């Protein structure tokens, strides 16, 4: 275990998965849209669920207000990085 806990759950994979969840979507459709292997989508969505960034309705998953906020925050940070 690292000496510091990692709080970075939203790498590029997490971002691309979250971006597909703006409307309720199945994991299979997420895999197709992101071109990620299904096992990777399952693990990523599980972490997003645990972080409260997405929620599940039946077989579908959708971004939460916290997920939208996190995406917006990340967008602002990336923009700032580009300006530096």
């Amino acid at each position, binding site marked *: 275990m690292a000496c510091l806990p990692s709080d970075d759950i939203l790498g590029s994979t997490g971002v691309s998965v979250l971006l597909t969840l703006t409307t309720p979507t199945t994991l299979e459709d997420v895999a197709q849209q992101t071109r990620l292997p299904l*096992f990777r989508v399952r693990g990523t969505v599980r*972490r997003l669920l645990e972080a409260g960034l997405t929620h599940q309705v039946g077989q579908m998953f959708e971004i939460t207000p916290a997920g939208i906020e996190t995406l917006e925050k990340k967008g602002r940070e990336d923009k700032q990085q580009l300006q530096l």
Partner: protein
Amino acid sequence: MEAKAKQEVGEAHHLPRIGEPAPDFEAESTFGNIRLEDFRGSWLIFFSHPADFTPVCTTEFAAFAEIQDELKQINVNLMGLSVDSVMAHIAWVRNIEEKFGLEIQFPVIADSDRKVANLYGMIMPGESKTETARCVFVIDPDGILRALIYYPMTTGRNMQELLRLVRALQTTDEHTVSTPANWQPGDAVIVPPPRTQELAEERLREGYDCKDWYFCQKAV
């Protein structure tokens, strides 16, 4: 007497066997926390290696990377494991990319507490009490363990054999047949032998390429 014998050999642990469900687990990996169930619906070659930053293991990872696209095309994923930390895995994977120009596109489990290694019997105490041997578990889309291979630390695995093995298992599932020694995709396959005398008589008239009633082959 029996209790003493049990005590001497340690508590018996049921290791996974062919035809049984592969034991589920959740573990830390280079792709974040991962569960075996995440791979449902696709084939999985789950393998262990002794240690990161060692030469034979490095040749194996490079060789796995070379066949990863071919495996994807036949719905097969790869997942590695050793007792090294996830930080060591990340550093090693990056090193392979830098030194060999090969991107490792599959997760590698950091099994520092040997939980998964013990669950799958990956440690061979006669060889090393701490490192995992070169084990391969082929798991089908339903999570059933279909094949096991164990190699010692000194001997790197043969990727063409792994490809052949998975293709043979897929052919068996698709056509309800067996595959003969040294079978390669495109070769004739073995038709299951008849189980009654009546069927044995009929078998020879069914149009297969038969040496005898119990030994019939066909193309697939």
